[in-house]
């Protein structure tokens, strides 16, 4: 080809512009469709975030199949505690309406440890208005029981004062029905 230097440079400049323009066009093609519907992001990502599987149910989800526990739990002071906090996640137990796994039930010393997660007086940051706390082993001594006792030997885990109220009713310290 017999082109002057100037012309060659002009062609060079033109091809750079074309390349840049082509790049921008290519960019347009590759940007996801829902990008920019609400702002500079992919609007579909909102729908995807809304479809993330839910793993925790509610206490009512549990009560449906566990009416016995439900009856006690709903009446006790522990009614605000989520079943799943102690027993594990709903999604690990039920899928598509069928039981898929057994959730753990805490036993003996585990129960005491679990109780003291909230009820330990040593942690001063717990307001008396919010929670009743006890010091161990003083509480066992005060109640005149063996120091090896676990909490659930006196307190029902779902309704902590259930037995205690009952006992008081029997011994006449409390009127039945109150």
């Amino acid at each position, binding site marked *: 080809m017999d082109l002057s230097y100037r012309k060659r440079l002009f062609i060079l400049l033109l091809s750079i512009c074309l390349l840049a323009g082509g790049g921008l066009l290519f960019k347009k093609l590759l940007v*996801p469709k829902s*990008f920019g519907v*609400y*702002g*500079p*992001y*992919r609007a579909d*990502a*909102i729908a*995807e*975030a*809304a*479809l*993330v*599987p*839910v*793993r*925790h*149910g*509610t206490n*009512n*989800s549990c009560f*449906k*199949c566990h009416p016995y526990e439900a009856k006690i739990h709903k009446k006790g002071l*522990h009614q*605000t*505690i*989520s079943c*799943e*906090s102690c027993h*594990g*996640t709903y*999604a690990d137990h*039920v*899928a*598509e*309406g069928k039981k898929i796994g057994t959730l753990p039930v805490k036993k003996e010393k585990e129960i005491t*440890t679990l109780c*003291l*997660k*909230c009820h*330990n007086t*040593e*942690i*001063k*940051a*717990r*307001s008396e208005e*919010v*929670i009743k706390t006890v010091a161990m082993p003083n509480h066992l001594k005060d109640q005149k029981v063996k120091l090896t006792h676990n909490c659930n030997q006196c307190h029902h885990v779902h309704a902590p004062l259930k037995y205690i109220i009952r006992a008081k009713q029997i011994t006449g310290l409390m009127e039945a029905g109150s």
Partner: protein
Amino acid sequence: MKRRSFIKKVLNGTIAGSLYLVWPMGGEGIQIPEQIPGIMGKEYDILNQEFAFIVDVTRCIGCGSCCVADKREYNVPDGNYRTWVERYVKGFSDKIYVDSPNGGLDGYQHPRKDIDEKIRDTFFVPKLCNMCKEAPCVQVCPVGATFKSPDGFILVDEKRCVGCAYCLQACPYSARFLHPDKKVAQKCTWCYQRVRKGLLPACVQVCPTKARKFGSMKDETSEVYKILKGPGVLTVLKKEMGTFPALYYKGARREVI
């Protein structure tokens, strides 16, 4: 009609389809009482929503249930935290001692043994995403993977995130982390998928003392609306950052950062 289209929409997604069946659980016709009124089974107007989260520091007992629930809800990898609970201890010398072993996941079983002075004040502070109205993480994300949805949630598009970690640097609350396997940024979403179904965020739902409160600001009967409308003093974290969080604290001392 609206309800039908909603169900149809949900059933279209395979995961969500199974979810819908699971979630009223136990068979036909049994509905769980909705936790956030006005969402379940109704069409969700994304452009007309506002939510608020209130943490009541005076009610938190540091049991760690929220942290455990959060970890279970999302299978959060060890060493990373969408939410965590800090323990503050203030001595009479005005010295502040803060700790959060394992993010409070194991609860607080023992008092701190390394403090010599007399303690004046001690309390727990749960932390999570502040859902800033002027979110620094959204501002800095170079690819638009972190964004503020029209209903006010800061979400992460895991399909577009490049894992540069700029948002981790920009978040004044350190609420973000890089998922060690997915290599994308993650953070607390206030359980967006639950809210969209009318359920409370997992941490709010399991909180035994109602230290965490969540609700719609469009619903004048909601607890958060009443609290925010009322005269009580609410604070936000790191106000000087100009982030305008939608997460409010009740009873947080000024030492809380």
